[in-house]
């Protein structure tokens, strides 16, 4: 990341851990050479946001502004894309991101029962994070693993052939 920040005036006060993440995101964007063809820079937006959310856990305003400035897009446009896709979030989420697929195949095979069981056990609604900041519960559309329906993802790990009974096991696994 260059010395002069493009988005905020408090880089000097940035904690090293945060700065490391921004540096990594900056390197990732640089490798895509978005400046070579500015007209096409918005084509990189989604993959960059994907990477950014992987790094930061969510997409806070500073990250949105940073990405916007690097791609020469307006922050409003970046926010527009984030708000369109349910995958992206601009709010901090729990350490364990539980996402229940509610795509057609999973839905038919009983995803809603699985989702209800997570809601009951965690005592939160869809899109919320538990008070201790440990679990986030969300619902996704198809993750492309329909043969394993119904599917649940916890962070990057996929659990197939889910049932409501298996919910307790998953939560226990996370606690370990």
């Amino acid at each position, binding site marked *: 990341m260059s010395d002069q920040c493009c988005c905020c*005036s408090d880089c000097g006060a940035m904690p090293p851990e945060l700065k490391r993440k921004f540096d990594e995101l900056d390197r990732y964007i640089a490798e895509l050479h978005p400046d070579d063809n500015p007209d096409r820079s918005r084509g990189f937006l989604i993959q960059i946001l994907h990477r950014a959310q992987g790094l930061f856990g969510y997409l806070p305003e500073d990250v949105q502004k940073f990405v916007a400035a690097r791609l020469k897009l307006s922050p409003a446009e970046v926010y527009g894309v984030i708000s369109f896709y349910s995958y992206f979030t601009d709010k901090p989420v729990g350490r364990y991101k539980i996402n229940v697929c509610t795509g057609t195949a999973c839905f038919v095979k009983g995803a809603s029962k699985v989702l209800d069981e997570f809601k009951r056990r965690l005592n939160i609604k869809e899109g919320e994070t538990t008070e201790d900041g440990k679990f986030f519960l969300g619902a996704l559309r198809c993750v492309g693993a329909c043969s394993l329906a119904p599917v649940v993802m916890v962070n990057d790990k996929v659990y197939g052939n889910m049932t409501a009974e298996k919910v307790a096991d998953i939560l226990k696994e996370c606690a370990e």
Partner: protein
Amino acid sequence: MNVNLKINDRPVTVEAGSTILEAAEKLDIKIPTLCHFKMDCFHMEHRSASCRICVVEVKGRPNLAPACSTPVMEGMEVKTNTLRAINARRTILDLLLSDHPKDCLTCPKNLNCQLQELAQEMGLHHLLFKGEQSTYNKDLSSNAIARDLDKCIMCRRCETACNSVQTVGVLSGVGRGFKAVVAPAGLRPLAETECVFCGQCVQACPVGALSEIDYKYPVWRALNDPGKTVVVQTAPAVRVAIGESFGLEPGSISTGKMVAALRMLGFDKVFDTDFAADLTIMEETTELIERVKNNRDLPILTSCCPGWVKFLEHQFPELIYMPSTAKSPQQMFGAITKSYYAQKIGVAPENIVVVSVMPCLAKKYEASREEFSRNGVRDVDIVISTRELADMIREAGIQFDQLDEETYDSPLGESTGAAVIFGATGGVLEAALRTAADWIAGEDLQEIDFKAVRGLEGIKEATVKVGGLELKAAVCSGLGNARKLLEKIKRGEANYHAIEIMACPGGCLNGGGQPYHHGDTTILEKRMEALYRADAGLPIRKSHQNPSIQKLYEEFLGEPGSHCAHTLLHTTYIDRKHPKK
């Protein structure tokens, strides 16, 4: 290459790449449109084809085609009014209206609404669908632009105005499906964004989702307060547009009628922003000559336009040393009224109310900027737009078109031709050149029409020889064009002495507070032509020859650029990208 096709069995030949809509226009066949918005002279076209109101039947094509975005093809046969097309259009309109409030009677765009017009044209007298209605809080956070998203039809014309034309980039489609809205990042209120309040989104909005923050009532209150002396100033571009609100031809110069109407409304003094425009030229030209002679801080940028100034403060804070420090005419007028004029009439500044009538919505914001008050008294108290003044005249029952012409009061009502052209892109620079040329040459030059800087083009250049000096100047209107020019300057690729920049394409005549033109650019051309006609018809056409201005300097300010002038008439700018904590 040309393409031949038939629309409603009538043959027409158009250039390849044209749309069905353009071909139909050539035949004077009207196809209804709603989301489509086109302003050729500014190279702007919003062609999202999202509303589908313009669907037509094309022979051999299974589905209906949106005329606004379907290119013509050789041998194409188009029917615009088949039963299938009419039914589809009615259904689409019905669906649009199912999620649109029906409170037209109290809507700020009532009788200026393209959705209302469409419903009337299509004769829709009852609605079939009763669907869910969006409900959002109104955004009244700024003092310039009101957002009422319940009325938004998601045509996204405002986004094109904000992002593509102005490159301000505040508005974007947010969310998806029924919950989608056009909003700033993070759904912030407009006042907390980089919005410059140019109001081009308000001009582009076909419905009442975007409008001005209304200040008519505070004006009525001031007019009915016996303890206040209420003074009004009218900006140059208002006089060539307000007549449109009363059925006069676009391009009518309504100065005299407007003055008469303002007097009937009860203003104690009817003055002219043009006076202050002449004053601006005195200060700005002094600064220009000083900077050119010392070759420092060039180019000098004009500072009359508050939208442009805010744009610079947000987007190019490293260049904030460039604009002239002269206040805008509106603010100079306020400052002089509450000092020089207050003394003259023996009224305390706090008992004077300065009302501005502006073609602009950013002027509402400008008047509220912290810098523009002295000892807790604001330079300008209330700002209303051309449209709001027209509403007040109507509310008072004044027959505008029947009025006899009257003239402005003295002394702050006297002005020159150089001031009236401030209302068009290029006008401020031309006015400055008229004065600079005289001052540098030390004589009263006769060649005063600088035609190279006139016209609606986005960026214009001129090299003017004055005395021994060769002045390189540029004129820029529309913030997208300003961005291009400023980036060139930053890269060291442009070498100018002076640049005029106006936020709105075409200048103030196309301001966000002007009567709605709905994309009809011939109206703008006529307003511009009227401004230059007004200039040519005035006996004095150079700012420094305005006798009231000369007297103001003699009696009060001293010389242009004097200490007193600097205290009252100059300002500073703020780096808004790196706000101080």
